[in-house]
């Protein structure tokens, strides 16, 4: 009475009946791979972007820009032991450390290496009264108002931000000047402080307990703890 269809699995009528097995088993493997791949890519991408922002490429650390004169801090500050402040004479009195005027170079180089080819731009500068076009290495964005003088006065050494300048043949940015870098010290300056006599000392190491020693210096210098992390300290 009833019309029952019995369909044998082997004898299927491919043309007549509607098959809904649209995908091969491999398709599932691909789909899963795709899902896993997509998720890993998204996750990995996020991590990569966060990491990239801190990379040497983005922070411009470890790049030695070409300079008109291949000035070597290693030679002048390291081997000859000239104090930082001899050339960067503004560092204790003004916001900017100051690049040495050509005159400063010539105080020595009118006596020694007077004919060195390397120093031709310096002599040209003096002769033509045109500045030497250095490429700035330590640069902060326009909206950051950094002052060298107060940092020097409160016991932050040159080396803290600029690294071992005395070992750099060509100058490069040793520390990533990110806001994190600045704010880290502004939150807890103590471990980064040194006695005034060692401000320009590149090789200075805290004697025993950096934090304790720093706290003593901070107390002596009257550092305004807790007031150095609000925005207008650096941004105006």
């Amino acid at each position, binding site marked *: 009475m009833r019309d029952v*269809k019995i*369909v044998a699995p082997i004898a299927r009528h491919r043309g007549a009946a509607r*098959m809904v097995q*649209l995908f091969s088993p491999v*398709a599932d493997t691909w*789909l*899963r791979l795709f899902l896993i791949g997509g998720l890993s890519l998204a996750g990995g991408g996020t991590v990569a972007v966060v990491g990239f922002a801190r990379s040497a490429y983005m922070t411009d650390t470890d790049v030695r820009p070409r300079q008109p004169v291949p000035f070597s801090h290693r030679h002048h500050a390291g081997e000859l032991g000239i104090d930082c402040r001899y050339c960067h004479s503004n560092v204790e009195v003004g916001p900017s450390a100051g690049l040495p005027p050509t005159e400063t170079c010539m105080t020595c180089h009118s006596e020694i290496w007077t004919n060195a080819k390397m120093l031709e731009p310096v002599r040209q500068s003096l002769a033509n009264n045109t500045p030497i076009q250095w490429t700035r290495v330590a640069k902060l964005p326009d909206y950051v108002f950094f002052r060298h003088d107060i940092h020097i006065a409160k016991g932050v050494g040159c080396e803290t931000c600029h690294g071992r300048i005395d070992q750099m043949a060509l100058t490069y940015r040793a520390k990533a000047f990110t806001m994190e870098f600045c*704010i880290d010290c502004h939150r807890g300056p103590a471990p980064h402080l040194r006695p005034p006599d060692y401000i320009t000392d590149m090789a200075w190491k805290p004697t025993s307990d950096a934090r304790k020693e720093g706290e003593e210096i901070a107390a002596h210098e009257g550092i305004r703890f807790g007031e150095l*992390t609000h925005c207008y300290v650096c941004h105006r």
Partner: protein
Amino acid sequence: MPEGLYGALAEFKSPEDLLAATRKVREAGYRNLDAFTPFPVDGLDRILRLPRPTIAFVGLAGAVAGAGIALIMQFYVNYDYPLNVGGRPIYAISAFAVVTFELTILFSALAMLVGMLWQNGLPRLNYPVFDTDRFHRASKDRFFLCVSADDAKFEAGETLAFLVGIGALSVELVPG
């Protein structure tokens, strides 16, 4: 278990037929059963003795995770860089309530969706039952009962005959 066979598929006209048939199949001693219907059929789970789903717990876990992550996130960012915002407290719990609530729901809902798919073994594009001629109506207006080839009592010819006997519109074997 026979090689290359997934089970036997029987087609029924209505949910009621399916329910009645399922009952009979179980009475006949078949245990490894599944039904395929165009919409959820009330009572089928009881007859098939399906375990209670645990999606609710997945959702709860998601909710707890969402609330936790939201609170930890909001507390942490204010702990990490405490700034005076309009004289408001650093840990302004009432202000944190909104994001906490939103994330609770977000995590819970997503957990349930993912949990449901995961427990259902989806996505799974290729599946044996698709390899049958009549199954396309399972999403339209027919109600299918499948006896798995894994079932201890399964024997292709016998089972098919049994299914025909309890009123299936059609029966066929599903290749594995």
